[in-house]
């Protein structure tokens, strides 16, 4: 991808849930190579901001584009495969094994199952590949989510509280994921209530407060 494109461009975007304004006049630009940290208290609108960028949360007003295309006017299905999003609860099917969960995503991306196996190895879960998700610990499920993102190799990485519920060596995974993405010319946005963690990873930081980006 060319280095000059803007990956994310939000201009005075607002988001509403029912009648409540969750985000108000948020403007944010993310270029290739950026690792943007956003911190704020619980309920400040961090998750909503991330879901907005991930095209999962329709805006109520403003202009927003991802990869240079207006994300809500254009056909967004091709945009979505280039986004790697990890929410704060794992979106895995409990009755499937960790590998089967990843294989489904690989299938949807047109990747062979061997990619799923390799990704599990990278996060140190090759021994637990055939373990049912609902028999796995929360930490293992988080790692599986990291494996999913490693596997699809997104241009835009969106992490919601990436450090929560992770043991020490898994924290390194977050770093590695961010560095990999940025080195490839992609960008990362991570939100957290933990200012120190964000500072150590990010090339620039913002604070979000009462739905406004400072």
């Amino acid at each position: 991808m060319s280095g000059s494109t803007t990956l994310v461009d939000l201009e005075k975007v607002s988001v509403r849930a029912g009648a409540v304004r969750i985000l108000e006049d948020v403007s944010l630009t993310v270029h290739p190579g950026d690792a943007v940290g956003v911190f704020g208290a619980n309920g400040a609108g961090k998750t909503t901001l991330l879901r907005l960028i991930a095209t999962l949360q329709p805006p109520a007003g403003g202009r927003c584009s991802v990869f240079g295309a207006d994300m809500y006017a254009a056909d967004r299905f091709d945009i979505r495969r280039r986004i790697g999003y990890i929410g704060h609860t794992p979106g895995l099917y409990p009755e499937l094994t960790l590998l089967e969960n990843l294989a489904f995503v690989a299938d949807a991306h047109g990747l062979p199952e061997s990619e799923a196996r390799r990704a599990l190895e990278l996060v140190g879960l090759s021994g637990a590949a055939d373990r049912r998700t609902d028999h796995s610990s929360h930490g293992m499920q988080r790692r599986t989510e990291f494996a999913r993102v490693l596997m699809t190799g997104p241009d835009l990485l969106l992490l919601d509280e990436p450090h929560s519920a992770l043991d020490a060596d898994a924290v390194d995974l977050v770093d590695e994921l961010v560095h990999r993405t940025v080195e490839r010319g992609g960008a990362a946005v991570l939100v957290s209530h933990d200012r120190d963690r964000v500072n150590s990873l990010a090339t620039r930081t913002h604070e979000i407060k009462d739905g406004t980006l400072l």
Partner: protein
Amino acid sequence: MTSTQHRTTVWPWIVMAVAGLHTFVASMTVSPDVVQGQLSRIMYVHVPAAWLAYLAFGVTMFASAMYLWKKDFRWDRRALASAEIGVLFTALAIGLGMIWAKPTWGVWWTWDARLTLTSIMFFVYLGYLALRRTTDNLDVRAARSAIFGVLAVVQVPLVHFSVIWWRTLHQPPTLLNPEGPAMDTAMVITLLIAVASFTVIYVAMMFKRIELARLEDEVLVADQTSSGPVAGQAVTAPGLTKGS
């Protein structure tokens, strides 16, 4: 800020009362049918109720389609109001049909095609009202119920034809036709008056029910904003600012 300064209208209540009284007087003074006797008077409330059941659901479908097109919450409230009133009149039409059938045929219920269809429609729109209760998010609620509103009406003709074909196949015993032999002119006129009056009642009810829907949406908005993270700040109820 939410506006609570809506004028309340009184005229629909008066219209309802006058139209209701008018129907009553007209249908009680007309002379009874030769064959059916006094029972024929039930027709003057049964037929208008059945007519309104269909009209109301037609309006719900139209309003649902309009909402999907315009994304204007006023259409969503019209669809809701009409569905709720429609459920009332459908229940009435079925109930009155039973009250007429019992002394006439000796049974409360027959598997007449139209009766079956009407009762199925009743449940379809009960489902519509139940669907609206599953979320407090105005956008989601409006979109979902509009899609169901359209889908339901696409299905109703199919239900209609299948039920009719089903009856034809089984050759139902020809009972006394509800319309009876050729009706007396006075009776036809009375029936038309009753249908017109009931339609007026429907329109007046729609006005009040839509007013209620608007207020309920405002209450919902007020509840959500008072407990929300940015309480009192930048609250706009979708569609409310467009007036009524």
